[in-house]
């Protein structure tokens, strides 16, 4: 297998004549350059740079875990770890709320499972609670990881997260914004934390699922 390469902003990746510029790249005078520090990836003609660090970039339809920042008369401001706070309007909740009664349902510091409803050109974000499995979080713990590591924690078709769930019998929900909700007894939570730490540290290595499985086996 070929080595994964780290590229830096401004690094030359190829010509637009033969390649297609993907995420994390920009084009200048027919040449493709890396825009961010990250891991270089080439799939067929598409070249892209996968970020190692950086803020969560919201995408419509993403499932995220948010923390209420402020309750306003008919909406809430929610921190979803993106560059901008997101807006949750009362009409996007399953409850029937009187004007000004928002605090009775969600107050500052509460956590919610939400979905990104839409993003406009000014990057104004709106969330919704009107969907399956979206609700106010009660109990459990929330931890934060680098948003760029979320795909590794979930694994291919949920392989990694299901593995962890199987070994620890914790309830785990991963938000695309790098927040993870955990619920279970203290011992199993400690195990999950160890597994996630391993994934974070070795997110660029191959055969990670096996390594995590070994770690979880060792602890049981």
């Amino acid at each position, binding site marked *: 297998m070929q080595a994964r390469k780290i590229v830096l902003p401004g690094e030359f990746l190829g010509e637009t004549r033969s390649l297609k510029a993907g995420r994390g790249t920009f084009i200048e005078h027919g040449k493709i350059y890396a825009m961010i520090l990250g891991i270089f990836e080439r799939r067929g003609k598409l070249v892209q740079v996968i970020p190692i660090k950086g803020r969560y970039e919201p995408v419509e339809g993403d499932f995220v875990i948010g923390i209420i920042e402020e309750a306003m008369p008919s909406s809430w401001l929610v921190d979803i770890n993106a560059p901008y706070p997101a807006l949750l309007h009362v009409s996007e909740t399953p409850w029937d709320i009187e004007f000004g009664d928002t605090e009775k349902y969600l107050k500052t510091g509460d956590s919610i499972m939400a979905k990104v409803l839409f993003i406009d050109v*000014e990057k104004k974000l709106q969330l919704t609670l009107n969907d399956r499995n979206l609700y106010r979080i009660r109990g459990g713990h929330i931890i934060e990881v680098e948003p760029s590591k979320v795909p590794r924690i979930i694994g291919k078709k949920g392989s990694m997260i299901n593995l962890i769930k199987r070994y620890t019998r914790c309830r785990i929900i991963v938000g695309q914004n790098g927040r993870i909700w955990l619920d279970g007894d203290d011992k199993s939570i400690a195990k999950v934390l160890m597994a996630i730490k391993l994934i974070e540290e*070795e997110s660029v290595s191959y055969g990670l699922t096996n390594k995590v499985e070994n770690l979880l086996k060792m602890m049981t």
Partner: protein
Amino acid sequence: MKLIDEEGRRLDGRRFDELRKIKIEAGVLHRAEGSCYLEWGGNKVVAAVYGPREAVPRHTQDPVKAVVNARYNMAAFSVDDRKKPGPDRRSREISKVTSEALERVIITDLFPRASIDVNIEILDAEAGTRCAGLTAAAVALADAGIPMRDIPVACAAGKIGAEVVDGEVKGGYVVLDLGKDEDNYGNADLPIAIAPRTDEILLLQMDGHLTYEEFEQALDLAMKGCHIVSKLQREALLNKYRPDLEENL
């Protein structure tokens, strides 16, 4: 004071085209999104990057792009006589020119209404802190995963050793990266910042007098210096992120 001898040796033994010793380390702070520690001769600089995040107060927001706020600050203990804390005319100017230089390479239109805040703290100063600060800020920005067209880099050149005879300036050498005494008793200082991929000039200031030919020479020399420092910046970033790659191959 004799700043340079007949053989072209300077006070600290460097030749005309030699830099001071530079050490760069990326990702040294845990709370900031990106950070860098840099030692450049006797200068010690920490740079930290926060954002992109929504700009506050609101009137500072730009609806089509992010604003870049660099804040250059000298620690009270960074100079011989205690520096009075807080922004002064000099640090305001450096903050402004640094912000503008960084703004040229950051792809700001990806983050409308946001601000990208860069804090540059000078812990120890020994001439050339604005170049050291900008160089550290650039590494911190890359470390924070901020989209950029290039990693900017700064370096200075200057002129030392000229004598004034009957009101006329005689002699003098154009040298790279002025040290403390060279800066204080020299004839001119020319700090520049460039985007090394295209050699675009992001910052150019001059203190003192140079003839046109000397200016060209100094600019050329400073550019060369920038490219050397640029390599060190890249190494620092790769050193931070490469190890966990190689270990796991």
